[in-house]
């Protein structure tokens, strides 16, 4: 947005000079003092919002990797992902076992 300059550099503004949007959103959206306004506006949870925004920021090709998938599949951040990682490993092992078993009988007749 070059046509709208919201920054006021004429006097000192507290706050990081380079503030990323996610940092601002997680502060201006919820938090703060809870005061009921007359006009009710449903603001999304910051997590949903950043995921939604990430899908816009990323190109269509990388969007799938970037947003929801990344978040949900990182074992460090999600217990479900840890479980999935374990399941994936089990599946790998079972496949490998099947592979080995299917080879074994072929060798016997020799």
């Amino acid at each position: 947005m070059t046509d709208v300059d919201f920054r006021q550099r004429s006097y000192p503004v507290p706050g990081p000079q380079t503030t990323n949007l996610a940092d601002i959103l997680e502060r201006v959206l919820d938090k703060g003092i809870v005061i009921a306004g007359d006009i009710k506006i449903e603001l999304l949870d910051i997590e949903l919002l950043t995921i939604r925004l990430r899908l816009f920021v990323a190109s269509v090709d990388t969007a799938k990797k970037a947003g929801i998938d990344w978040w949900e599949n990182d074992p460090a951040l999600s217990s479900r992902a840890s479980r999935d990682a374990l399941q994936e490993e089990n599946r790998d092992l079972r496949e490998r076992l099947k592979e080995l078993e299917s080879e074994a009988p072929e060798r016997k007749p020799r």
Partner: protein
Amino acid sequence: MTERGPETSDADTIYVFAVCRDPDPTDVVGLTGVSDDSAVSTLSLGTLTAIVQTVRAADFTDEAWQARLSDQRELERYARAHHDVVSAVAARCPTVPLPMATLYHGERRVREALGEEADRFRAALRRIAHHAEWGVKVYAPPSTRVDRDARDGRDEREGRSDRLERDRRDDPHDPERAPARQVASADRTRPAPGAGLAYLNRKRGAQERRERGQNEALRIAEAVDAEVGGLAKASRRLRPQPQAAGERRVQVLNATYLVAEHRAEELARLTRTLRERTGARIELSGPWVPYSFVGEV
């Protein structure tokens, strides 16, 4: 923009950015706010003052906001506009920020609604006086978690796909190859004794390293939180932010602290020390207007 509605209904919608104590009316001069149609101004609540702007009602319906939440540029424009007014005012006088998009039907309603909360605003002002908010983010050190595990994972996958390719070359169902295969089967790449066990051990090793890496990263996150929390008046854990595509790093701590102004230098020093000691990437952001510390505690 929609068609121009009756001016009266637009004039009735008031956006409130913050509540301050003793602002100078000139503190808001030149601020853009969230609308080009009117200036940001002050509205007296008695001992406190609201920082307000008259906006077009049509731009602030729930429907308009839902559309805005799906448009990154629009959302960013409004979030930064709100943040810039709050930050600018807070630089001049004690300020309690309100959440983005707090709106009232007219000045009378602003006075009523916010006037009733005067005690809470005063308590919040006392709490954050001479304090600033600082954000601290910790990313797992690449050597202990992300890079090594990612490399291990890749090696595993590459190893497996090599193997699969090799097996495919020896495809027993390929009739052309069958006789040759019979002959060659003695020195064929049959798994060496214990190959399966080695594979299992390798898998188990990678899993253990991954767990160790995760535990280590989480331990560092806890240590950083404890140390920074030690010099803060209050702290809050925020949800770790998802990282951009291609970023191998993992955010293991996203926390924010209410720190006295005179301890800002100390915080910067502590952050440097923690970086050196843990090897983790630690980002410090601030000073922020204490958004996260004006709510109920």
